[in-house]
């Protein structure tokens, strides 16, 4: 996105400035001294409205202490079960229902897998979600939602809001800068940012081939500080995980020609933005010149995020050349 951060460039700078240093630098395993680890509950919950709204759900996990490896069983134990999770939508309190993947019938399990972006056939952990299965919550822009989690003698609370939708106004496919790549294209979107309010955006993409919605690798959120009230066109990179096997910096952000592209364009509130903003920054901000960045959570009594998305979903087709 158009938000620019200088720190990655400083890394380039070091790379180009000190070839000798890099030839000479070396690495060795490091065993950190004992730290005062205190386990915490991590909330990951979303409530959506708009033209593609997933059911409201919450995943509860535990933090991990500093360990070098975790196996499937230990991973399974991270998921917090038998919690009491409820959401107040301003009118009523709705109790979310605990659904553990392995206890679900085949078709429901598959659907839950789609929501989470996982393959339920091969996953080893018995992931449990807390879901508003009957869709009782009134989900609409302008409302606030209070989450309460009661688990293991702890009470965690959080509030999020669903902001007004901001639709994308145009889409364009253009050739990539590297003209030798003719099987892929760059997507340009047009945003018309409303002038009267501060807006925060997050986007995710998926393709027909790879249906899981993912956030982009380098910063998934942006606010309108640089372009409040303007209509403008920007490139929208296809999202990929930085550590995925098919990640290639030379083709990062490009869409495959002949494939469909799904754009999930979301408006979010300030607290929700702060969470992803600090989290994305922390993920890209470790190393030689960094101090550290603590992720800003909106969860009282725990870590994580209770976030509202007002979603505009677009399905586009990237034509072959």
């Amino acid at each position, binding site marked *: 996105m158009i938000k620019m951060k200088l720190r990655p460039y400083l890394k380039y700078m070091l790379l180009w400035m000190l070839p000798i240093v890099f030839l000479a630098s070396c690495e060795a395993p*490091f065993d950190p001294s004992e730290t005062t680890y205190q386990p915490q509950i991590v909330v990951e919950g979303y409530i959506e409205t708009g033209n593609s709204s997933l059911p409201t759900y919450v995943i509860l996990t535990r933090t991990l202490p500093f360990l070098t490896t975790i196996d499937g069983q230990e991973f399974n134990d991270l998921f917090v079960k038998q919690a009491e999770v409820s959401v107040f939508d301003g009118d009523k309190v709705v109790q979310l229902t605990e659904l553990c993947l392995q206890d679900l019938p085949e078709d429901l399990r598959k659907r839950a897998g789609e929501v989470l972006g996982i393959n339920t056939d091969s996953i080893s952990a018995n992931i449990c979600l807390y879901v508003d299965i009957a869709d009782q919550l009134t989900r609409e822009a302008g409302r606030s939602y209070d989450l309460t989690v009661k688990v293991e003698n702890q009470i965690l609370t959080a509030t999020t809001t669903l902001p007004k939708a901001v639709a994308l106004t145009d889409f364009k496919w253009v050739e990539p800068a590297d003209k030798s790549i003719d099987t892929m294209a760059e997507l340009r979107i047009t945003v018309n940012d409303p002038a009267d309010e501060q807006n925060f955006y997050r986007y995710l993409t998926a393709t027909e081939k790879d249906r899981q919605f993912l956030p982009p690798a380098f910063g998934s959120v942006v606010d309108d500080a640089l372009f409040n009230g303007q209509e403008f066109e920007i490139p929208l990179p296809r999202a990929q995980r930085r550590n995925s096997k098919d990640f290639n910096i030379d083709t990062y952000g490009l869409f495959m020609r002949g494939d469909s592209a799904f754009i999930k364009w979301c408006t979010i509130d300030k607290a929700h933005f702060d969470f992803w903003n600090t989290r994305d920054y922390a993920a890209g901000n470790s190393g030689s010149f960094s101090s550290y960045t603590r992720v800003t959570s909106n969860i009282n009594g725990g870590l994580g995020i209770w976030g509202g998305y007002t979603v505009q979903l677009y399905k586009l087709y990237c034509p072959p050349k």
Partner: protein
Amino acid sequence: MKDLKIFLRNTHKLYSIVAILMMAFSVYSQETFTLSGYVKDKNSGETMIGASVVSVSDQSFAAVTNNYGFYSLTMPKDVYRVTVSYIGYESTSFEVTLDKNTNLNVQLSAGIVMQEVTISADKEDRRKNVESTQMGTIDVPVENIKKLPAIFGEVDVLKSIQLLPGVLSSGEGNSGFYVRGGGSDQNLVLLDEALVYSTGHMLGFFSVFNSDALKNTTLIKGNMPANYGGRLSSVLDIQMKEGNDKKYVVEGGIGLISSRLTVQGPVVKDKSSFIISGRRTYILDLIQPALKGGKFEGTNYYFYDLNTKWNYTLSDKDRIFFSGYFGDDILKFRQSTRNFRFDMPYGNKTATLRWNHLFNHKMFMNVSAIYNDYRFKFTGGQDEFVFKLFSGVKDWNLKADVEHYLNTKHTLKYGVNYTYHTMTPNTAQASNGDVDFSNNILPKYSNEGAIFFLDDIKLDNQWNVNAGIRLSAFQQVGPYTSRITQAHFKTFEPVKTYGGVEPRLSVNYRVSKDLSLKAGMAATTQYIHLVSNSSSTLPADVWVPSTEIVKPQRGLQYAAGVFKNLSKDEYELSFELYYKDLKNQIDYADNYVADISKDVEDAFVSGIGRAYGAELFIKKAKGRLNGWVGYTLSKTERSFPAIENGRWYPAVYDRPHDLSIVANYNLSKKWDFSAVFIYGTGKLYTPVNGFFLIEQQINLFYGPRNSARLDDYHRLDLSATYTPNPDSKKRFKGSWTFSLYNTYNRKNPFFINFDTNSDFQSGNTTIEATKITIFPLIPSITYNFKWND
């Protein structure tokens, strides 16, 4: 406004004090005469800073040359034998019948250091350790710095001062430094009086000071006298050479990283001279052919420095100087496959015009007009998308200082200083085709002013006092739109005014000829700030002024020490204790995200700090083997209400133990050897406490700020200088310097990197911490040459 009233009230008081003192002092001046003049190097005509001028019969009559080589010594009418000396030079003695005010310029010849018995004249010079009221002040002649081992053979003033007690390096191989628990922005770094805002090239791995162009460096790490201000922690006052006014000299060096060339000579013999000195790196220029046709064609990085100075002696009483420094780092990055490019130039420019005027034998005045400019630019983009970022500081500075050698007991200094600052904290513009974006962050303008008065008082043979006061003021002015009230301020219209009353006091009690006790305090105010959330200062970090939102930093330092000379002044010893109290310290909160669309001052949090420590310094200044041992035991802490609820935590540069051993050995005329050993407690960092899952990804969460340490740091550097023909009468002379950095290849940790790998499907997760070391054993070789006509 309240601050301004206090400031004005105190100004009034100060004038009254000055008037009373003037009346009191006039009593003495009738019965004495003054011996004054300049001390210069006989070969080059360079004025000498800090040379001693002492009466042999009564050593209480002593003076030291100022930053322009001027001395003034007032004594009762009599016949005196006077000795003039400077370390590394042969002293000279002469008889003076002082029955009238006498002007006497003295020339000293560089000593032949190879002799068994080195120059006896250093003796008086070394007495300064015991005699001066100043504490925590160290003069480091640049010639001494050149003998020390240097990484990649690059001689570096800033890395040398890191070897002094109370001074810490900001990181492995880095020229940034911290003094007595103060931040890196709390050091006043001056080059010929011009403020140098960014002291590092190549992310701080090399300093901007080309040692070939420098004459002297003075570090004041505590109790700064009232003529210095604007920073809380220290003063590093660097003077450039003036240029040889007798003959033309060309000297230079060829090293692994850079090469240097200096030309100096007379413009009008004995009256006017110039020096021009340049340095440039070229390692990536050399690989340009290899990049041609590849993905990164056009990518390059280099830095350069250019120092120039010209001076003209108008008369016995007037001399003018013009000096300039221009330095830049230039980074160009090109990646053809993605049509991605950026240019990142940054650097300093300074220009100083000075006028030295002697009113009479006792009054020396310097008036300076100084311009300095630090700019950081980033221009980058991909296809039609272009992004530009600019930050910088531009100062216009006028100052006048008078040194008034009133009588045998009082030396006064007083002066005024005014600076107009223009500070641009990250103005960003972006365009994509026809659409422009801007963060609308405009430059901030401010006036900074100060008046000071100080008196160096010799009460009797035992008590010396240096008392001074500095009154400072800072005013943010328009054009500006208040970010609190939205009110608009026109050009030069005051937005916010701050004042500072900064008393300074140093007392020296001479217990015996070679033992003294000193104590002092200094209150300081700092109106401009540099905040970094990195482990070291980066070029992208921006200087910001005090504003309606950001308050000035304030500091108060107390220090006391014992100073002793041993074995007929062969050894100098000092032991100092200090305590420092810091207010309005600025930092970023834990969850800070660098975002150029926002004004950085919105991300600041404010807190307090304290630092205390003990410093031991043992120096052997003469003999074939000379050098020093410096050891510091210290603690530095900060407390910010917005960071972990105000818990006192150790500052990132808290290093309890810090030891430096420096030794030079002169084996013969041909061979000189040097060794440096450094030991320091490991650097602090904020440990990763654990991990959590979000969007199926592993995320880190951290323990308390700065609550873990890396391994201790230690290193030995060695160097040897070989001069093949030391006695050669030829005009061209060369020497070779061989250096070993980190001789025993200690793997000092630079940082810890965390790598996480998690497969959500299988649940298998790996988390690895790796210690990264950057500088192993590095050998280097440099060839230096000198030609003179």
